[in-house]
């Protein structure tokens, strides 16, 4: 079991309020991702759940039990750190066995459980090595191994893939998702990378300035962002946000249209524009277009399109895909 309930949680550091007042429910077995720009309080929130930081007020319950005052060791959670945080003086075996040793398991059980974890994570051949003799991906797997042997109520991940190169990051992303399906244990994952959030999460919690902007499934956030911040943060490339006359036409202070919801034509359309830079990704082409009276627009075209700097093009947003926002930034 691993359900969480955060009620009116606040956190101050000295006079600085990092998390003003936060409520959140996480159900057992969920993969929840906290996402937001740096300094939004997502790591602090994870550390509050872990018990590595004390809340200033409010309560945190795990499976209905108030653990606000419990130390990390008593909460039954495992954590994977961005820096891996392996014990450099212990072998891979020693690292994975450490939580079991702390739990007072007997030698045979430890050997069996470490062996099982090593098999799942392809670490069997490296058990005698020291962390410094491993690659980044292997170190991350050891950190995960150390987390899974405890059979925790939930796994906490603090930007675990940030130190890996792009290719390895994609692999590890899949491995962690696979692990979630195998174990079915609650996972709380912190990242600033919205692609990681979109691809891995059952539910995403978008944070900004310590406040929850929106909670929902990846597609809910993508299709119906509740405010301008979420609209701009979720999706890559970003949603085009347009103010002024074009927005007023739709009775809104700001309208948003995603790059893939803009039809392109060489001779007619709602907005006339000039092509700036074309980014060819092979499967897609992202066009950065200066549209007259609207501003800078990013549009997604298929990979075959051939347009060059300075070409004229007409843009037409799909009417039912336009997001409307009030002057306060709320979705209308």
């Amino acid at each position, binding site marked *: 079991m691993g359900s969480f309930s955060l009620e009116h949680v606040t956190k101050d550091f000295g006079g600085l309020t990092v998390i003003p007042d936060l409520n959140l429910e996480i159900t057992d077995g969920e993969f929840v991702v906290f996402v937001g720009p740096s300094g939004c309080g997502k790591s602090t929130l994870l550390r509050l759940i*872990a*018990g*590595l930081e004390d809340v200033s007020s409010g309560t945190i319950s795990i499976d209905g039990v108030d653990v606000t005052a419990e*130390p*990390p*060791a008593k909460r039954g*959670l*495992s*954590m994977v*750190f*961005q*820096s891996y*945080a*392996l*014990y*450099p*003086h212990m072998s891979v075996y020693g690292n994975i066995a*450490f*939580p079991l040793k*702390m*739990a007072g398991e007997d030698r045979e059980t430890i050997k069996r459980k470490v062996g099982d974890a090593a098999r799942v994570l392809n670490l069997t051949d490296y058990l005698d090595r020291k962390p410094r003799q491993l690659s980044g991906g292997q170190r991350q797997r050891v950190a995960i191994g*150390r987390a899974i042997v*405890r059979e925790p109520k939930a796994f*906490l991940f603090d930007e675990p893939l940030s130190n890996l190169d792009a290719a390895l990051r994609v692999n590890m992303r899949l491995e962690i998702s696979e692990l979630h399906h195998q174990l079915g244990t609650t996972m709380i994952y912190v990242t600033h990378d919205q692609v990681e959030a979109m691809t891995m999460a059952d539910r995403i919690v978008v944070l900004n300035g310590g406040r929850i902007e929106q909670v929902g499934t990846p597609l809910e956030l993508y299709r119906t962002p509740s405010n301008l911040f979420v609209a701009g943060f979720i999706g890559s490339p970003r949603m085009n946000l347009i103010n002024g006359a074009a927005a007023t036409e739709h009775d809104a202070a700001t309208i948003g249209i995603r790059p893939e919801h803009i039809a392109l034509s060489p001779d007619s359309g709602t907005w006339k524009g000039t092509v700036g830079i074309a980014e060819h990704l092979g499967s897609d082409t992202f066009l950065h277009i200066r549209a007259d009276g609207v501003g800078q627009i990013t549009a997604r075209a298929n990979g075959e399109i051939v347009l060059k700097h300075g070409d004229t093009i007409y843009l037409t947003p799909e009417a039912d895909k336009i997001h409307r926002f009030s002057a306060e930034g709320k979705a209308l």
Partner: protein
Amino acid sequence: MARAVTTNRKLVFTVIGWAVGLLIFFPILWTFLTSFKSEGEAIASPPSFLFFNWTLENYAEVQNRSDYFKHVMNSVIISFGSTFIGLLIAVPAAWAMAFSPTKRTKDILMWMLSTKMLPPVGVLVPIYLLYRDTGLLDTRLGLVIVMTMINLPIIVWMLFTYFKDIPSDILEAARMDGASLRKEILYVLVPMAVPGIASTLLLNVILAWNEAFWTLNLTAADAAPLTAFIASYSSPEGLFWAKLSAASTLAIAPILVLGWFSQKQLVRGLTFGAVK
């Protein structure tokens, strides 16, 4: 051209290095040589450097007059005892300051260091009277206590700087893995700080071994370490340079050997974390 300049520069620095090294080592060498001279040759002017009648007489005399091994034992117990007790107190203290600092941590560290600036003689009388009344005068326990107190600020400072270089993530990982505070320090912090702890231990053993003010003032016969043993040869009967040198050589020999064998560890520990 560039290479030639580098070589010349290297040569100059090597010569300067050796010159400074010899200058520092000279008093020890001179003491060592004097210990093999007769009393007459020891005060002869001009002094002879190597060409004199080498004799072991002074060592025999020193051994006859006083119990060298008893003083060695006292020195060992006082220096190692005070360092171990100091470490037991300082490790948790430095842990707290390095990993859970408060607004006042810096002030506390400075205050601890400031106690080292106080002239020891300023507190000699109160401590002497306290020791006299509690029966700690001329006891090994008394000396261990006073040495621990004197060197504790240095031990805490050194450990604090080493601990600061250990990523707090790793200690937090141990906490998440179910380690209690005691286990976190014992299984994770201490093994990772071994070079730092070892150099702290060595430096403090050396400091305590060489300390003379408190050992001379608080001991008489029973707990007198090697410093008191040396001092006993500069007596009212007159100065016996050769015998004093023999006693000094005997007194510094153990710590010199320890320093020699541990120099690598000492240097590594003292520069630990300087380059990342």
